[in-house]
């Protein structure tokens, strides 16, 4: 078991003939991911690493029954590519591309919601279910199969933490990158819900950072979760940020700070690491029954189902 992607996921790579697309298509194939097709407008009929390339996602669905996409196309064309994938009925669309205009991102999310498609990203490292499927650009050697679900806003920091868990013998069920942009598809809560329902996941690690209110919302949800959670939040030393005008301040209304996030998480029973390399130790503790620190923790057994 895993969430979002597994060994049955049939993947199409959009932007398969570009430098990034070509390189990571090969890496995903090498990992064992079922990459069935590539799409690059105007390049239909070519092959990349033996994988057939089409002009449209529609054809990749028709000929290969693909049900997930990883998008590498340049930012100006990304909205079109994402709409194409969503319109083609794919279940999961992972957008690696960064610097997508935020209004394009809002449009993509509105359309995905209308169609019931799960979007991961943009500006994400992707999703990996170790040993099963890798849809993204993360370094494969940092991961191993196991009971820990990781959900992170940032890439390299989560590689670091995953690698430390792996080194400590704590493999992962699935690792999900939400992406670094303000408007993204999946959020913490939506991923945590899936981990809560996933039999293979016994504990979750949340890698957050300052800004926005996603961690606070995650904390709300975690209060009702049966599985233990560990978190690390980056940005403690950041100076009071450059504000987005009054509207930004009004939206967040005092939330979004490091202290606020840590307080909310701890109040929800999450063990919050002060330094990134302490995460592995905390996960070990909660898996061996150390349990959550807060008073609002779950009443069900802590080491899963």
């Amino acid at each position, binding site marked *: 078991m895993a969430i979002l992607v597994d060994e049955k996921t049939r993947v199409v790579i959009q932007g398969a003939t570009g430098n990034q697309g070509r390189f990571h298509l090969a890496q995903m194939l090498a990992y064992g991911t079922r990459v069935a097709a590539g799409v690059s407008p105007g390049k239909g009929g070519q092959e990349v690493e033996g994988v057939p390339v089409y002009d449209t996602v529609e054809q990749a669905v028709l000929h290969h029954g693909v049900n997930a996409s990883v998008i590498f196309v340049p930012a100006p064309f990304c909205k079109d590519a994402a709409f194409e994938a969503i319109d083609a009925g794919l279940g999961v669309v992972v957008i690696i591309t960064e610097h997508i205009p935020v*209004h394009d991102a*809002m449009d993509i999310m509105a359309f995905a919601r*209308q169609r019931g498609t799960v979007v991961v990203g943009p500006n994400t490292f992707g999703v990996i279910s170790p040993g099963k499927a890798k849809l993204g650009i993360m*370094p494969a050697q940092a991961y191993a199969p196991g009971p820990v679900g990781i959900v992170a806003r*940032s*890439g*390299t920091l989560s590689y*670091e933490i995953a690698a430390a868990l792996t080194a400590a013998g704590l493999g992962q069920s699935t690792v999900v990158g939400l992406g670094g942009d303000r408007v993204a598809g999946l959020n913490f809560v939506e991923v945590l819900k899936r981990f809560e329902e996933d039999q293979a996941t016994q504990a979750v690690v949340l890698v957050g950072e300052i800004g926005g209110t*996603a961690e606070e919302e995650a904390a709300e949800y975690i209060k009702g979760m049966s599985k233990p959670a560990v978190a690390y939040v980056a940005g403690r030393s950041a100076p009071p940020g450059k504000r987005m005008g009054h509207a930004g301040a009004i939206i967040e209304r005092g939330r979004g700070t490091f202290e606020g996030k840590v307080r909310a998480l701890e109040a929800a029973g999450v063990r919050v690491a002060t*330094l990134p390399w302490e995460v592995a130790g905390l996960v070990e503790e909660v898996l061996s029954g150390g349990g959550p620190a807060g008073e609002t923790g779950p009443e069900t057994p802590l080491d899963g189902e």
Partner: protein
Amino acid sequence: MKLYEHMAKEVFGRQGIPVPPGRVVTTAEEAADAARELGEVAVKVQILAGGRGKAGGIRFASTPEEAGRVAEELLGTEVRGLVVDRLLVEKKLAIDREFYLGIAVDGAARRPVVIASTQGGVNIEEVPEKLLVRQTVDPTWGLMPYRSRQVARRLDLEGSEARQFSQILVRLFAIFRSLDAELVEINPLALLEDGRLVAADGRLNVDDDALSRHPDLPRVEEGTETERRAREAGLSYVELDGDIAVMANGAGITMATLDIIQHYGGRPANFLDAGGGAGVEPMARAIEILLSRSPRALLINIFGGITRCDDVARAILKVADARGGIEVPLVIRLVGTNEEEGLALLKERGFEAYRTMEEAARRVVAAAAAGNGGDDSGHTRR
């Protein structure tokens, strides 16, 4: 990209949102001329920061002579840390009440959000929640007039005020969408004594990632000289007030690196994210920029994913070659993709590298404190 008030107001005016008559000036004479034309005026410094009223950046003048004098006093000064090089001279408004109206991106809702209040003005951030109307807008169909009437209704506006407000909101939303804005804001949206609603101030921040779609917009530069150089090199760079320069790859890991330095008692000099698989050239440029600020020590923290460790090593060696050595203590932490190659390249030239963030962070803090990186760098300070 933030636009100056006068630019935002020009956009507003073109879209039919009422703004006060006014002129941008850069000299006292121009200010006096403007006042001669406009009568009693407000003279407002044009800087990319809020709170300028409280900082003395907004003054009033009854005569052209006074306007010239006030302009003279303001031009060239610093307001909220920013040099004043232009002023907006506007006809003074007879304001009855001040509303607030803003549209921003609500990341949690993944939608635009309209925020409005009849209690606008300088203290909007302290207005109690119940006096604020928030309404997210499905971008699918945009903000249609009925939605703006709903907002007006919730603010308890009636008659002419409701009508003017609704029209302004529809137009402001059109600006927000068509110009790829991250934020548009009118604060205060002034209800004048004669019953008209006028945008007395204006803010318009455009999404940097969408600027290429708006070639007609003016380009406004922000930040220090070094920050601009970094931006031109495609780097995400912010200056801080410490003395340990930091380069890492990825926003999260960079932030975490700063946190760790501070945790061990050090003071970071900057935030520099060279993430996203930067090659040798941009990374070398990044290191040059960091060294140009004369830090007491430099930490390079790389966990290679897309970023290749051998490229990082080459970037370091390139800078060392160009400068005849790195002049401050350099601490390197290098793991991940092509780690072996990278370490080998560095070792060849006498550079050592750590495998963990912990060791590297402790070392760089110690080096900055001692004013010497010692045996790690093999190079002497300038």
